[in-house]
C-alpha cells in the first residue's frame, strides 16, 4: 500500500526501534466515518490492528461563532450559543445567560432559576441518553440506541411544549426564561421522572453489565487522574478517572447549592479506575442524580412570573468575566469581554469537549482500532462544540 508522504510528523509518534517492524499503515478515520460522532478526522498510524499514533484534526464544523459574537447584540448571541453543543442547548444557554447576568449584575427571578435548573437537568439526561445510545452503537449494539432515543423523545416533547423547539431551544434568556411553563407541564415532568427511573435498569441489563460490553470497554483507554487534570478534562470524563469534581458542587452556580445529589466518580468496578467503562457508567448513574435534582426542584418551585426581570435592552457595563458551568460534557467556560457597548468585544468559549478530545493522542498508542473507537466514544465529544 502506498505510503502517504504528507503525514505530518507529530510528537505523539511512538518511536519503536524494533528491527523486525513492518511498515505502518496510515489510516484516515474520518471526516466521514460512522463513529467519529460528526466530522472529526483522526489520522491513525497502525501496526496491523494496533494503533501507534492518533492525531485528531478538527475544524470541519467551524462556524466562526466567536467572530459572529463580536457583531451580535447580547440577546442575539443566544441562538448561536444553542448551536455549539447541540445536544445540550439548554446547558449552553444557561452558562451564557449566567455569565452575562453576573457581568451586568442582573437579578434573576426565583421561579426562572428553578425552571432553568429543571430544563438544564432534563437536557443533561437527554444528552447522556444520546451518549448511551451512540456508545452502544460504537461497540456494536444497536438496540440500546433506540431505547435511549425512545426516552429522549419524551424529554424533547417536553422541551417542545415549554420552548417551542425540539433541539435549539433559545429558552434561557439573559435575566430569566422566555416563557413560563405551560399549564400541567411540571406534572408532566414529574411523570417523566417516574417513567424514566426504571428504564435505567433496562439499559444496565442490556448494555452496561453485558459481558461482551464490559470486555470491550473495561481497561480500555485508561486515563489516570493526574493526566486527566493536566489535560484539562472535565465533567464525566474527569469523574470517570476518580476525581470527585463537579462544578455544581465545587463551584456552585445558579441555585445548585440548594439541591442534594451525589457526585458520581469512577471506581474501576470492572477494570481500572479511569477506563472507558467507568466513564460510561458515571454517565449512566448521573442520569439518576439528575432525576433527583429535577424532583427536588419540582417540589420547591415557587410561583411567580419568570419573565418579570428580563430586561428589554440588555446593557452590559465594561468589564470581563470568566464564567464556568457544568454541561453534560464538562466545564463550559465563557470568557466575555465587554466595553459597555451593545456588542461584546470578545466571547471566548472554553468548550469541554475541546479539552476532552485533546487527550486522545495521549491514550491512543497501544490500543486496537476497535478500542480507539471505544475510547473516543467514551469521551463523549460533540463536534459542534469543539469546532464552534
Amino acid at each position, binding site marked *: 500500500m502506498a505510503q502517504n508522504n504528507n503525514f505530518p510528523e507529530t510528537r505523539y509518534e511512538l518511536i519503536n526501534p524494533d528491527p523486525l517492524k513492518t511498515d505502518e499503515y496510515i489510516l484516515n478515520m474520518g471526516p466521514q466515518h460512522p463513529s467519529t460522532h460528526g466530522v472529526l478526522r483522526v489520522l491513525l498510524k497502525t501496526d496491523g490492528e494496533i494503533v501507534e499514533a492518533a492525531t485528531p484534526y478538527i475544524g470541519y464544523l467551524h462556524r466562526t461563532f466567536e467572530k459572529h459574537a463580536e457583531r451580535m447584540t447580547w440577546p442575539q448571541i443566544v441562538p448561536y450559543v444553542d448551536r455549539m453543543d447541540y445536544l445540550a442547548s439548554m446547558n449552553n444557554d444557561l452558562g451564557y445567560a449566567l455569565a452575562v447576568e453576573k457581568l451586568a449584575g442582573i437579578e434573576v427571578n426565583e421561579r426562572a432559576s428553578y425552571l432553568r435548573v429543571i430544563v438544564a437537568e432534563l437536557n443533561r439526561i437527554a444528552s447522556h441518553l444520546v451518549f448511551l445510545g451512540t456508545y452502544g452503537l460504537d461497540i456494536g449494539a444497536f438496540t440500546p440506541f433506540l431505547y435511549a432515543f425512545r426516552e429522549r423523545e419524551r424529554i424533547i416533547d417536553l422541551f417542545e411544549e415549554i420552548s417551542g423547539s425540539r433541539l435549539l431551544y433559545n429558552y434561557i434568556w439573559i435575566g430569566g426564561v422566555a416563557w413560563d411553563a405551560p399549564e400541567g407541564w411540571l406534572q408532566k415532568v414529574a411523570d417523566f421522572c417516574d417513567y424514566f427511573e426504571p428504564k435505567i435498569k433496562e439499559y444496565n441489563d442490556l448494555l452496561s453489565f453485558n459481558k461482551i460490553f464490559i470486555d470491550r470497554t473495561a481497561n480500555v483507554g485508561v486515563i489516570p487522574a493526574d493526566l486527566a487534570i493536566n489535560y484539562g478534562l472535565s465533567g464525566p470524563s474527569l469523574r470517570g478517572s476518580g476525581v470527585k469534581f463537579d462544578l455544581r458542587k465545587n463551584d456552585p452556580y445558579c441555585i445548585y447549592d440548594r439541591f442534594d445529589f451525589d457526585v458520581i466518580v469512577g471506581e474501576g468496578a470492572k477494570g481500572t479506575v479511569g477506563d472507558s467503562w467507568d466513564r460510561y457508567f458515571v454517565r449512566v448513574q448521573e442520569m439518576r442524580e439528575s432525576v433527583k435534582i429535577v424532583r427536588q426542584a419540582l417540589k420547591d418551585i415557587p410561583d411567580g412570573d419568570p419573565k418579570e426581570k428580563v430586561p428589554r435592552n440588555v446593557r452590559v457595563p465594561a468589564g470581563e468575566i470568566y464564567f464556568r458551568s457544568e454541561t453534560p460534557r464538562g466545564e463550559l467556560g465563557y470568557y466575555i469581554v465587554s466595553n459597555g457597548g451593545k456588542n461584546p468585544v470578545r466571547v471566548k468559549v*472554553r468548550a469541554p469537549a475541546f479539552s476532552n478530545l485533546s487527550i486522545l493522542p495521549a491514550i491512543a498508542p497501544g490500543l486496537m482500532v476497535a478500542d480507539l473507537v471505544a475510547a473516543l466514544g467514551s469521551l463523549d465529544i460533540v463536534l459542534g462544540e469543539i469546532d464552534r
Partner: protein
Amino acid sequence: MEAKDIYQKLKDRFQDAILELNDEVLQPYIKVTADQVDEIAEMLRDDDAFQFDYLMSLSGLDLGENLGVVYHLYSMKLNHKIVLKTEVPKEKPDVKTVCHIWRTADWHEREAYDLLGINFLNHPDLRRILLPEDWEGHPLRKDYQPPKSWHGIPVTLEKEEDEDGAK
C-alpha cells in the same frame, strides 16, 4: 489564597516580570510580561501554596495595539482561582508556551495562534487547528479582512458586502 497574596509571592520571586495586580474588578487578575510566562506558570503549578493544577481556559484577545493572552487558573486541591494576563505587540506577538506545564494548553494555544496569530515560542506543534492549513490571516483580529475566495469557493457574498458598505 487571595489574589493579593499570590501577587505578593510572585512579585517576591520574579520582581519586574510581574507588572500589576488589579483586584478592583469582578475577577482579580495579575499582569505579567510575556517572556517569563512559562516560569511563572511553572511556579504557580508547583508551589505548595498555589497548586494551580488546572488550566481552565487560555484565551487570546485583540486589544487594538496589542494582543493579549489570558490564563484562567484553578486549583483543584485548594479551590482558588487566579487570572493571569500578558500583552504582546502585534508586530512581534511572541509568548512563551505553557503547554508543557498544562497539556491542555496545547490545543488552546494552537487555537489562539490560529485565530489571532499569537506566536507561542517552544510550542512543539504550532499548527492551525480550526481553519484550513493554508488559510491566510487571523480572523479574530479586529482589522481582519476576509478573502474574496478560497480555492475557488466564494467566501464573502457580494450582496452582503454591499449591505455592509451601506451601513
